[in-house]
């Protein structure tokens, strides 16, 4: 670990100012950042600790809920309003990491957790995400934990979050306070960026930009399912996960929002999949069609090929459950 300065933020507005600088990072729960710093995958020269800012509340707002950026994953999963109206989020959170980690991990930190690509974590191998232009050791290597959607020629790293997948299905918006003090909201598909030829740039955040919260609109569907497939019963990242938020009317799918983990370089959602489902009567053929759409541009390696049949089966089971 490189030596660094430490500043404890006491004022939200000032935090963005303190957070400016290419080598400055915010630290919340520290469960991802500290690991990366110990390995010198990330080596900030200054940390701004935001864990004591008053951003740890969940409040009603605009017909939905506003979740402060430092609300812990444990608190968010246990919140009665979340459990009642956004159960898909509770379930996604509880399917992630371990109890100890969830007690420290925060909403903002979870959104910004870095990929688990083992080559990204290994400073002795080239990685375009870690050192732009260096090359990618994952390609041609061991890729069972990699992405099949949204990949580029420079990067196939997966976004590992469970929470963000549920949020994506819930049309969450990320609230960002810029360095100038202004606050803007971004839909998840605007917030995250595909790797293309700049895999080191993962979101639209710029120096000093602080996530202050996440806004969840009123849920569009009351049938919510989160399903995660992993290598062991707990404490493992998703091989494939699916979040579905569905509304049924007269035996038809009136509204569908389906998002995916374990597949994409960002928490994945495909408007064509949602559109194909909406207005239709549930059937196996329909679900298979949705899977075809989802995976139409998938790019696999020998390591990730299994994800296609798995995603297909999981999507079908999730939609069967959500529409039953």
């Amino acid at each position: 670990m490189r030596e660094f300065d430490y500043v404890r933020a006491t004022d939200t507005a000032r935090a963005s100012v303190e957070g400016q600088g290419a080598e400055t990072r915010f630290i919340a729960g520290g469960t991802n950042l500290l690991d990366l710093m110990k390995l010198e995958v990330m080596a900030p020269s200054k940390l701004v600790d935001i864990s004591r800012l008053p951003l740890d509340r969940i409040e009603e707002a605009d017909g939905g809920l506003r979740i402060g950026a430092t609300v812990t994953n444990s608190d968010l999963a246990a919140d009665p309003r979340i459990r009642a109206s956004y159960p898909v989020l509770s379930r996604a959170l509880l399917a992630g990491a371990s109890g100890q980690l969830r007690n420290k991990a925060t909403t903002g930190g979870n959104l910004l957790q870095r990929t688990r690509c083992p080559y990204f974590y290994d400073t002795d191998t080239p990685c375009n995400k870690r050192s732009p232009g260096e090359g990618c050791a994952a390609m041609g290597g061991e890729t069972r934990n990699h992405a099949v959607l949204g990949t580029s020629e420079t990067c196939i790293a997966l976004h590992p979050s469970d929470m963000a997948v549920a949020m994506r299905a819930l049309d969450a918006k990320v609230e960002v306070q810029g360095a100038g003090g202004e606050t803007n909201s971004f839909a998840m598909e605007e917030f995250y960026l595909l790797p293309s030829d700049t895999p080191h740039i993962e979101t639209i955040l710029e120096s000093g930009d602080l996530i202050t919260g996440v806004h969840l609109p009123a849920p569009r569907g009351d049938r919510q399912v989160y399903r995660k497939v992993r290598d062991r019963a707990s404490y493992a990242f998703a091989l494939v996960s699916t979040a579905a938020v569905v509304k049924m009317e007269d035996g038809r799918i009136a509204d569908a929002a389906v998002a995916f983990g374990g597949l994409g370089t960002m928490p994945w959602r495909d408007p064509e999949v949602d559109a194909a489902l909406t207005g239709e009567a549930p059937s196996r053929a329909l679900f298979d069609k949705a899977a075809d759409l989802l995976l139409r541009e998938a790019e696999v390696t020998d390591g990730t090929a299994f994800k296609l049949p798995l995603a297909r089966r999981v999507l079908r089971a999730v939609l069967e459950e959500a529409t039953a």
Partner: protein
Amino acid sequence: MSYELKVDDKETTDRAAGLSQGLLGTAADRPEGVLKVTGRATYAAEDMPEGTAFGVLVRAPAMGRVELGNAPAVEKLPGVLAVIHDKRMLRNPAQGMAGEAPVQGVAEADYVGQPIALVVAGSFEQARHAAEVMEVRCLGEIRPVSPGAVEPEVPEKKQSSMGDLDAAMAAAVHKVDATYSTSAMSSAAMEPHAALAWWEGDKLTVRASLQMLKYNRAELADSVGIPLENVRILSPYVGGGFGSKLGVSPEVVAAAIAAQQLGRPVRVVLNRRQVFETITRRSETEQHIRLAADGEGRLTGVGHDALVSNLPEEPFSEPVTQATPFNYEGAARTIGHRVARIHRPAAGSVRAPGEAVGVTAFEIAMDELAVAAGIDPVELRLRNIPAEVPGTGKPFSSHMLAESLNDGAARFGWADRAAEPRARREGEWWIGSGVASAFRVNMLSEAEARVVLGPEGAIVETDMTDIGTGTYAILGQIAGELLGLPQEKVEVRLGDTAFPPGSGSGGSIGAASTGTAVWLAAQEVRAALAKEMGCEPDDLTLKDGRATCGNISRDIAELISGESLEGHGHVQPGDASSKVKQATFGAHFAEVAVNDVTGEVRVRRMLGSFAAGRILNLKTARSQCHGGMTWGIGMALTEELVHDRRDGHMVNRDLAEYHVAVNADVPPLEVHFLEERDPWTGPMQVKGIGELGICGAAAAILNAIHHASGVRLRDLPATPDKVLAGLEELG
């Protein structure tokens, strides 16, 4: 004086039966348990002397001749005291019981991840940073890293054949001819490998996390180049070893060299990644198994050929077929062993080397034979239990496989099991069950111990280690039993090479070997007490601190009148192993659920029935079996070291990505011990129990997966992708 025993013959009298304290076989607590769970037991890296400096090992990022580009600059970084690049440093740990230095030298990197330098600094953080910024170049070609890429060695001594297996296969009514593979695995002990070294003149003391101190002392002395007498190793507590701490490892030698060079204590703790790639792994295996059987399922031929790997010059190769010569009937028998010399991190002993993976594959093959023959798998095994080691006429010292299978089957409810696979479904889940036999060779090793009886109680001393298995508890029980003292009146001191050399922990030898040394030492003390009492040792009763002989009864403390009595015990293996075959046996039963949508497998319950001679401590023995069965779950479902196909480096070298079983993977585990006395192991009639629980455990799970879902997997672990591929094939 010393009580000596060479185990040449059987001992049929139950010598413990005449003792009165009632400690043997109870579920006594670990005396050091409270210290451990309250964080007061000092492991190797704790208890630092004043002025300790901190060392961090630097790894080779490639293979070939090593160049440390910026060493002078690194030496000038804040706090850095030295960059040590010494030819005595180890390439990899010594193999178990080596007693001499392993391959040394850091000028050349033989595998990616090899430690090639040590950076020492005033603080751990400074050393870690300096190690990270070290520019290491390795100027060489990448050498072969996968077993399939080289022509394997075929060591002559490890091939054996009797009868005509090809003819047996040709004539067989039912047969199996299949290839199985198991993954490379890591011990993943909780306590990382660590060493704290300091010198006083030419005398070196090292606190280290090691399993077999008398060998480690010799290995360390040889590595550093000093006489054995000048080395002292302290390992009072070891946070798990499982074979990974059998031999002296790179951090120990590096700490010793650094402490010598700097003239101050140096501590080197491996981080988790280094534990994975610097410490020996279990080799991956490929096993070709052939079984020939007659119409009743009786084996007429057995073939077991194994391919394993290791680095060049390593003497160890996973003894996959160790149980195959004696496991079942079968007159024709061909056993093969091949070693691929490749440049992955070194392979070595990991809990039950050989049987853990060899019995597992064999027991899956037995299940395939049961299915092919239409015979219940428990029944198939019962039909094939040999009366003696096939083809040799050698009897078994004790053998309770049939009893284990029957006992386990009855308790598990095996009789209710459907004969056909895919017979039970609950929602998305297929439910099924499987069985496997457990085999593990049993060994005795030379050991010595001292017992001193004083007015306050007794003290046991040996350099034996307790690697979490319960050695402190059982040695105290043995001494207490013989000397008529409650356990709290016996202090057990372990893990110091200043004490008489015990057996060390490894290969399940500890309880029988060092336990017998303690038994003998305590017998010597008993004889002295008998003399004081004026009677024969056999007529003496010792209980709760009182000595009784006929109608005389005296307080022991008073009897020895403030003095102390010392006994020394020394046991050695004798001819017993040439006269009888000694092994432990058991049976595993598992019920699993296989998800039809995702291929995920959940173990719903597991039961093991084991026979391992006298059980000295019910609690610690059961814990060993729980551990072994839990490892079996890991081997069956999740554990796999992934090596990069291009340069062999370990890709998943942390506990987030290398998946050991977590709590949620482990259902209630039931363990039962059968009453057994093995007359060929010395006066206690015990055998080892530390490794039996893993042998075959994974096979019971894989067999249950087949019974549940119809998917037969021969490539472990059964991760969801593999199970799913099988389900898709079945449609």
